[in-house]
């Protein structure tokens, strides 16, 4: 039936047809499960430039692994040599067979086992360069493979403290993947040795082997081994983490076409889950590790989601800080996937019949502090002072009666309950006729922007205060203080507001650099996103973050989230202040002149001495 046939090709051929069939069906089902509105986006995007930019990204990420390179060059090289090297080997292998046989429809396995079918390295017009290249590609892959094996046994040189745990199919796929290329090298070398052919790698090794091994007899089993390794790899691929190779390419296209993860488990969400390569880069960046957590770490969570083993404790154990997404080379929507698993865990029937009927107050600007700001009254006091100075007409909407913004319920998967609170607040906000809503709480900011549909401008108070400073309506009081600024998760990674608070601080004080800034900023540990961590675990996170913030010995820590502030205050060695308090100059209430501190220390020492005697 086939021109180039030998029984040893069967494992490879069967494996290959299996994987094509499996992927065809799997991807089709995924696309169906994506849902109609999202599928419309695909139809719109498919014939646009978006597709081209997706092709580019596939090349950069699925083959070259640029993002992994950025995190860690050695790890990047490992991934690249395997992916890109293999790609080149296949591509050039095919081109070579076409050039030689001039038959476009020669079977795939002809290219893969070219050396077996044409052991004497046939000549065609650029064959010398061609075989040189093929040997180089193989060497390239083998170098990456060596790194991969070293990595399994010694993770630290890759800058990763933890590598991921393995399951059965992963083990099978991993072993066969590791064996594919050494077997290919052996098969080609033995054949070269037997026929006195081959090039710098296969030829040299071949003649060395021929010196002490019966290469003619070893040749055939080696080709069998190569084919078997390929076959095993293909068959185990869909059930192992290597499913990420084909799925990631699909994901890149879907994302470029503008698909959205949404709040339900859809085909798109599934594509994201399957795209996780379990590279483990996220583990070190997720502070759950600091808290001693070994189950809920992002990569294990995604693994559990894939195996349908997510329990409520796993679903709830995430700070929603977003540090994992910042570093994930596949850019998986890890936070949203976690929120999806939180849906419908409770009856979601909160009873807010007691909500007061309030009358909106006419104003140009509304200030909403939120529940957390109620626990940090210094922020409201500072805002009032600044607003009075600016002469703006601001209604402090929740100063007396505060109703929650709705975000905590959304974070707990209670969308319906959240909507009741959102409706209540929305009526007050729109009723006041204000053109601008300002909040000092980034948690509220997120929900105002994403869920309220207010049709008016929504600002964080750092943005608002900077605006007032620029228009010279307020003048922040100069302060000769070294300030370390903490980026709150919800403000920074959540709403991409990094510069405004810094500029505001810089307009009156000295900002010092900290170790984890902006996108890489740590979480204070108090996050409302996590219902699961206990107080001790939260304190571990808090301590790590405080250490990073106080490394440069600042006079104070500044932040722009009341929850961060309140959490830091528990154990910060220096005063913690909100940016509004710095701008308003109220920081003076908290900072004692150095002489007073000295006095205090002296008294303590005296007392201690007395006790000792």
């Amino acid at each position, binding site marked *: 039936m086939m021109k180039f046939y030998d029984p040893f090709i069967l494992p490879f051929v069967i494996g290959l047809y299996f994987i094509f069939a499996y992927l065809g069906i799997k991807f089709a089902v995924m696309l169906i499960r994506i849902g109609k509105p999202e599928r419309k986006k695909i139809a719109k995007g498919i014939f646009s430039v978006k597709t081209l930019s997706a092709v580019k990204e596939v090349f950069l990420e699925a083959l070259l692994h640029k993002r992994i390179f950025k995190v860690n060059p050695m790890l990047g090289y490992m991934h690249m040599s395997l992916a890109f090297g293999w790609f080149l080997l296949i591509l050039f292998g095919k081109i070579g067979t076409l050039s030689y046989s001039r038959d476009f429809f020669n079977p795939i396995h002809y290219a893969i086992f070219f050396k077996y079918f044409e052991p004497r390295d046939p000549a065609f017009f650029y064959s010398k360069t061609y075989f040189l290249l093929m040997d180089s590609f193989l060497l390239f892959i083998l170098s990456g493979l060596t790194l991969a094996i070293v990595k399994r046994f010694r993770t630290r040189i890759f800058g990763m403290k933890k590598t991921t745990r393995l399951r059965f199919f992963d083990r099978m796929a991993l072993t066969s993947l590791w064996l594919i290329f050494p077997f290919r090298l052996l098969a080609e070398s033995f054949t070269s040795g037997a026929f006195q052919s081959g090039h710098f790698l296969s030829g040299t090794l071949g003649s060395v082997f021929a010196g002490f091994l019966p290469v003619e007899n070893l040749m055939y089993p080696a080709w069998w081994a190569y084919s078997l390794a390929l076959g095993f790899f293909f068959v185990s691929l869909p059930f192992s983490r290597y499913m990420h190779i084909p799925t990631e390419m699909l994901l890149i296209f879907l994302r470029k076409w503008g698909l959205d993860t949404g709040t339900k488990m859809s085909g798109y969400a599934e594509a994201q889950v399957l795209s996780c390569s379990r590279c483990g880069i996220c583990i070190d960046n997720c502070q759950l590790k600091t808290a001693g957590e070994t189950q809920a770490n992002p990569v294990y969570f995604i693994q559990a989601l894939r195996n349908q083993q997510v329990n409520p404790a796993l679903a*709830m154990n995430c700070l929603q800080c977003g540090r994992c997404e910042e570093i994930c080379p596949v850019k998986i929507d890890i936070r949203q996937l976690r929120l999806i698993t939180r849906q419908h865990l409770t009856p979601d029937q909160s009873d*807010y019949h007691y909500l007061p009927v309030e009358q909106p107050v006419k104003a140009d600007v509304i200030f909403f502090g939120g*529940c957390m700001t109620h626990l940090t009254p210094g922020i409201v006091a500072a805002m009032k002072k600044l607003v009075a100075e600016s002469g703006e007409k601001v209604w402090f909407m929740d100063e007396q009666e*505060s109703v*929650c913004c709705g975000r905590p*319920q959304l974070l*707990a998967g209670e969308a319906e309950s959240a909507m009741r609170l959102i409706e209540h607040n929305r009526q007050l906000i729109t009723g006041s006729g204000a053109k601008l809503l300002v909040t000092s709480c980034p948690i509220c900011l997120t929900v105002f922007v994403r869920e309220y549909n207010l049709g008016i401008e929504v600002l964080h108070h750092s943005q608002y205060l900077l605006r007032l400073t620029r228009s010279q309506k307020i003048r922040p009081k100069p302060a000769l203080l070294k300030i370390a600024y903490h980026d709150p998760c919800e403000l920074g990674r959540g709403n991409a507001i990094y510069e405004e608070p810094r500029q505001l601080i810089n307009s009156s004080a000295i900002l010092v650099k900290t170790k984890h800034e902006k996108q890489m900023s740590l979480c204070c540990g108090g996050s*409302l996103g996590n219902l*699961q961590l206990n107080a001790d675990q939260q304190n571990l996170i808090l301590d790590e973050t405080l250490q990073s913030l106080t490394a440069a010995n600042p006079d104070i820590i500044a932040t722009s989230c009341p929850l961060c502030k309140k959490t830091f205050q528990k154990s910060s060695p220096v005063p913690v202040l909100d940016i509004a308090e710095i701008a308003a100059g109220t920081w003076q209430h908290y900072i004692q002149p150095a002489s007073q501190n000295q006095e205090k220390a002296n008294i303590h020492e005296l007392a201690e001495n007395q006790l000792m005697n």
Partner: protein
Amino acid sequence: MATFGFSILKDRQIDYDNNDHRLFRFIEEQEPSIRLCIGCGGCTAGCTAAGFTGFNYRKLNYLLMRGETEHLQKGIQQCMLCGKCKLVCPRGVNTRNMIFALKRAFKTPLWEELQKKINV
């Protein structure tokens, strides 16, 4: 239990031996910190929901611990999950997770059984 036959006041004794602690144990397994409560009331003083209504986290925590499940459901649904209580609690009680675990308990057969017992 001995009844002395006084009739001026309704009998308000609570027989702890008769109380059903299964719900408490079920929740405690998921959130062991609820045992740490010292009843200081800090949580309730700052509670957002308590600003509008009689909702009282401390009370509910105690009712749960005592195995008095009658008023739990109605009470707990009034919480906004805002998290102020957790921030002020001096004992590190993970209040929000207690509320969350309790809400989830409403979906279990154990809850149905307890409801039947109350309605008898």
